[in-house]
């Protein structure tokens, strides 16, 4: 996978985030503050604008740019968390021109570790980590078995979607939803839902 692959990924994320913006905001309205869709939409719109100005030389440079832009434009909890994730992804990939599924899986693991460190959320706390962590495991397993990118990304996307769905019965222990205590039960975490979209976009692009 080269820079143009990751450019396509970012384009696809931008598209689905815009399309699902209202749903994400509604999920956030139920147990948060009704801005998650607007936040990510603003962030990825800014990413697209940044990419219209410069074309990064490598997948790593591209993803660092994406992460930096998210940090600079999103705000809220998800801005630093997703920003850090993309930056760490890019940093780990370094300046290689081509990235294998295994390399990507390792970089995503580093990215998710960074999110965990920053937000100190564990799996089961009802956050984006509940979608990110199973996706990383699924991707790592597929890559270790030598799966093609398309298959590996499909496994990761499915794991993220299942992880997001599995947040519904949980009581939140991190983020705004935790203020609701038991009333947070019965709602999908918006950040886990957006993680599922981001990995779904990876699947879409990987399947082309």
């Amino acid at each position, binding site marked *: 996978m080269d820079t143009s692959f990751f450019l396509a990924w970012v384009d696809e994320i931008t598209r689905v985030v815009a399309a699902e913006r209202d749903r994400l905001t509604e999920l956030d309205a139920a147990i948060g503050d009704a*801005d998650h869709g607007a936040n990510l939409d603003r962030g990825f719109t800014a990413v697209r604008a940044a990419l219209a100005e410069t074309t990064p030389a490598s997948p790593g440079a591209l993803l660092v740019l994406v992460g930096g832009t998210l*940090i600079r434009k999103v*705000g*809220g909890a998800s801005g630093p*968390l997703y920003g850090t994730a993309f930056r760490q992804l890019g940093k780990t990939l370094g300046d290689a021109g081509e990235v294998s599924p295994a390399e990507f899986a390792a970089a995503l693991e580093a990215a998710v570790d960074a999110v965990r460190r920053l937000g100190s959320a564990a799996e089961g706390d009802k956050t984006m980590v509940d979608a990110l962590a199973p996706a990383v495991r699924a991707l790592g397993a597929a890559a270790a078995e030598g799966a093609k990118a398309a298959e590996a990304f499909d496994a990761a996307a499915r794991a993220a979607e299942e992880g997001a769905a599995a947040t519904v019965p949980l009581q939140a222990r991190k983020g705004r939803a935790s*203020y609701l205590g038991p009333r947070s039960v019965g709602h999908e975490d918006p950040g886990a839902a957006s993680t599922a979209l981001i990995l779904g976009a990876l699947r879409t692009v990987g399947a082309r």
Partner: protein
Amino acid sequence: MKKLINDAGTVVSDALAGVAAAHPGLRVDVENRVVYRASGPRRGKVGLVSGGGSGHEPLHGGFVGHGMLDAACPGEIFTSPVPDQVIEATKGVDGGVGVLHIVKNYTGDVLNFEMAAELCAEEGVEVASVLVNDDVAVRDSLYTAGRRGTGATLFVEKIAGALAEEGAPLAEVAAVAADVNARSRSFGVALSPCTTPAAGKPTFQLADDEIELGIGIHGEPGRTRAAAGPAREIVRVAMDAINEDLPLSGETLVMLNGMGATPLIELYVAFAEVDAYLREHGARAARTLVGNYVTSLDMQGFSVTVCHLTDELTRLWDAPVETPGLRWGR
């Protein structure tokens, strides 16, 4: 949804243009979204920077000025500001003796301010932070993101601002800020939800005979839903929660804060009940604020914040302040 705006996407910058036009004592960098004192930083004075999502006006931009903040960073509506804003503001108010960040305890605010503080430190600006977490509706435990910062933010900004104005060093300003926070407790009640311009519909639904107890300032539902009742009873629930957490006694600073859409006459009705409760519990409202100070857009409801005063805190509270939202003594 009906809002007095031009476009849901430009509310914050349009409002900042209005702030700039209305207040010659402020300098507003609309592009970078920072509200400064027009007078600029003062050498030898600790700078005070706060910020957070918009929608809580007059917090924080309305509290920039002599005796209070040096700069405020307004984020999008209910969205914490980005590190760039905080970095810009921090550098812009540095008078050479360090800057205090006043941060409300929300994951987003904490992360964005932390990132900014790290970068500022790397660039040689000394930064201290105080975390405001006064909301007793949230248990501060492993099972939550910790108590939210709400009304006490204003107390911290005012009192730390007064001390900074006197030329106290950063460590002392940070210490008094932390002390004010430690001595303050808040509880909020919603009679109606609010509507963000981006979402375009209320964040939750409440029947005509229901209220939400233990709300924050972001339109989120509270800890529990309860039957609506007379102000006397609603205030009692709020005051009981505060009193159970930090028993009331002695001289207090009390804010009866409107969430944005509650008529002032109703806030006074509620304040009479707060005052009666305090007397019953052997405490006294030595200093008071009644009005819209830390709001949640067009939410109907109120919050009470009580701070246990010392003579020194009272002195600092009484010190001159000149901001759009709070002014006395000059």
